[in-house]
């Protein structure tokens, strides 16, 4: 078998032009398939490890996926807010151990600003219940202090002490800048691979303070006349918050607490369990995922057919070669294995190349995607899926190789010893 394999490889090398093209077709199809699968798995893992340790997230009533996306992933916007008294009601509940209110809506050079309390930095957990940690500086202390994520610091070149101006809303800076109330970076968080890296954290009071004079949604001409000292002396308790992260006394009450909040009569609330909302999100995306997987499987089939085509078209010009092999002692089994091994070799080399290419591409593109979307594709390195795919493609190629093998075999039997062109 070994001598037949070396014969098969020599024969492929003799036709390296078509062989390389065929290998490329297989490689690209395998890379596409593995890429889709890895992106899917990676996104799930990445999203799944973004928040842990929070039992419930409460916001104004909208869709659970929407609430999850804006409160945790900084994607999309809240359509309504929760009033402060309602927040206090949630915090005061007997079954609630802790709450962290968050307030969203402002931005700085494309990065979202989140007003919250000091508790956020101890209560928010990601991945395997990991806590946030400060890489340099310290948490906000003064009203106009900001704690920035690692990606913000890296991309904008900010460090502790840098002064920054927030923008009202999520648009570009300019007219909508809160330029009368500059902030100072007090700390930079360590990298987490979550949207925290792309967030600017300030105190809830600061959010209230910069909006003094902005009650109508645009800047009141009188806003500038209010000095910083005056602002500091105001009662800066927010009137509304965007969402509340909730930790429970006992996990067992989670459904009861959720129902109580969902049916709160005085305000339309929605409480979600992060993991459950995430599953709902995957249910939505799985339709598209399945379509993508199906398409990429078809592309693999096309790659396999190109193996078949390249070998079948070579058969005519190799009729002479088969006769020579037969005459010098090759049995039908040898001819058959020669063809099958050629197909298998094309499939194997193509699949290995494809797996290599996609792993390399993800290793290069992974950090770029993480920086852009805040969610790192977790666990996309070389894995068992790659091995299984290589195995399956090689096996399919071997099976497909039986078609030209059978043709070559029957022909070489009929041709006898005479060499026909």
């Amino acid at each position: 078998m070994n001598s037949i394999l070396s014969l098969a490889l020599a024969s492929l090398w003799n036709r390296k032009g078509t062989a390389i093209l065929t290998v490329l077709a297989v490689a690209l199809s395998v890379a596409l398939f593995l890429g889709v699968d890895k992106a899917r798995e990676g996104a799930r893992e990445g999203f799944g490890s973004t928040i842990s340790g929070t039992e419930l997230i409460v916001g104004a009533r909208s869709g659970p996926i929407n609430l999850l996306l804006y409160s945790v992933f900084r994607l999309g916007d809240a359509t309504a807010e929760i009033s402060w008294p309602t927040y206090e009601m949630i915090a005061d509940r007997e079954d609630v151990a802790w709450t962290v209110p968050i307030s969203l809506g402002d931005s700085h050079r494309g990065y979202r600003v989140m007003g919250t309390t000091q508790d956020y930095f101890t209560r928010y957990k990601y991945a395997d219940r990991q806590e946030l940690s400060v890489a340099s500086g310290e948490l906000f202390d003064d009203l106009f202090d900001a704690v920035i994520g690692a990606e913000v610091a890296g991309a904008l070149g900010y460090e502790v002490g840098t002064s920054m101006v927030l923008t009202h809303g999520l648009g570009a800076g300019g007219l909508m800048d809160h330029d009368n109330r500059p902030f100072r970076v007090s700390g930079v968080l360590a990298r987490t691979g979550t949207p925290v890296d792309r967030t600017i954290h300030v105190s809830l009071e600061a959010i209230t303070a910069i909006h003094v004079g902005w009650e109508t949604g645009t800047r009141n001409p009188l806003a500038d006349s209010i000095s910083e000292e005056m602002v500091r002396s105001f009662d800066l308790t927010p009137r509304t918050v965007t969402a509340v992260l909730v930790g429970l006394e006992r996990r067992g009450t989670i459904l009861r607490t959720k129902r109580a909040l969902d049916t709160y009569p005085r305000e339309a609330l929605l409480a979600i369990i992060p993991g459950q909302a995430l599953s709902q999100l995957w249910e939505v995306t799985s339709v598209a995922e399945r379509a993508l997987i199906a398409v990429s499987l078809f592309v693999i089939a096309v790659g396999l057919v190109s193996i078949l085509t390249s070998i079948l078209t070579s058969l005519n010009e190799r009729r002479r070669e088969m006769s020579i092999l037969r005459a010098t002692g090759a049995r039908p089994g040898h001819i058959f294995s020669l063809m099958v091994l050629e197909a298998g070799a094309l499939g194997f080399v193509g699949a290995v190349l494809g797996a290599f290419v996609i792993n390399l591409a993800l290793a290069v593109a992974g950090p770029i995607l993480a920086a852009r979307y805040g969610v790192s594709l977790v666990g996309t390195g070389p894995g068992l899926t790659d091995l299984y795919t290589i195995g399956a493609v090689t096996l399919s190629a071997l099976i497909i190789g039986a078609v030209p093998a059978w043709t070559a075999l029957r022909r070489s039997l009929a041709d006898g010893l005479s060499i026909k062109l």
Partner: protein
Amino acid sequence: MSEPAVEIRDLRFAYDGGPPLLDLPAFSLGRGERLFLRGPSGSGKSTLLGLIAGVLPARSGTVNVLGHEMTKLSGAARDKIRADHLGVIFQMFNLVPYLSVTANAALPCRFSSARRKAVGGDVSEEAARLLARLGLDDSALLKRRVVDLSVGQQQRVAAARALIGGPEIVIADEPTSALDADARDRFIALLSEEAERTGAALLFVSHDAALASQFDRAIDLVEINHAVGREAA
């Protein structure tokens, strides 16, 4: 040594749907004999070689090769006899284009462990030795692609391939028809010499009756083939 290398009795053969092509009451090739077989084009020379080599199955009669009754054997068993005991040279296009000169000469050893064993040591070395005896020992020439060799050189590589591992029978189907008279005579001399050295019987086919003098014995297929006579009558 009493038993001939090839012994044929009452052989009949026709291709599927074709008229009777061969009807041989008797044909034999002695051990170590150098036999010349001639006959016009289309008379069935190549077909007879195919029957002896076990590639084509006989309709009736017996084809005995080295004591094996080919008509009673399965295709696989006939293939094995060919791989172990026969060397074959064709008219042209003898070589596998993607193998080196030496690998081409060593090709039968890939398919037959008996031939490998007969070589004993390193197969490529033996191939190189045989090639050198046939006048192919220029190292630059041995490195060349086989398709870039002259036809005469290709035929000598094919001869080395037929002889490697010392098969008992060498079958040559018009191996010289593409060579000029000079090259042809030298090739036949070399082939006969090597066949004699290894003790192989040589069955040499050609339509060119002038070559007969270089062999131990010569037969005309038309004379021994009764199928032709009956058709003509």
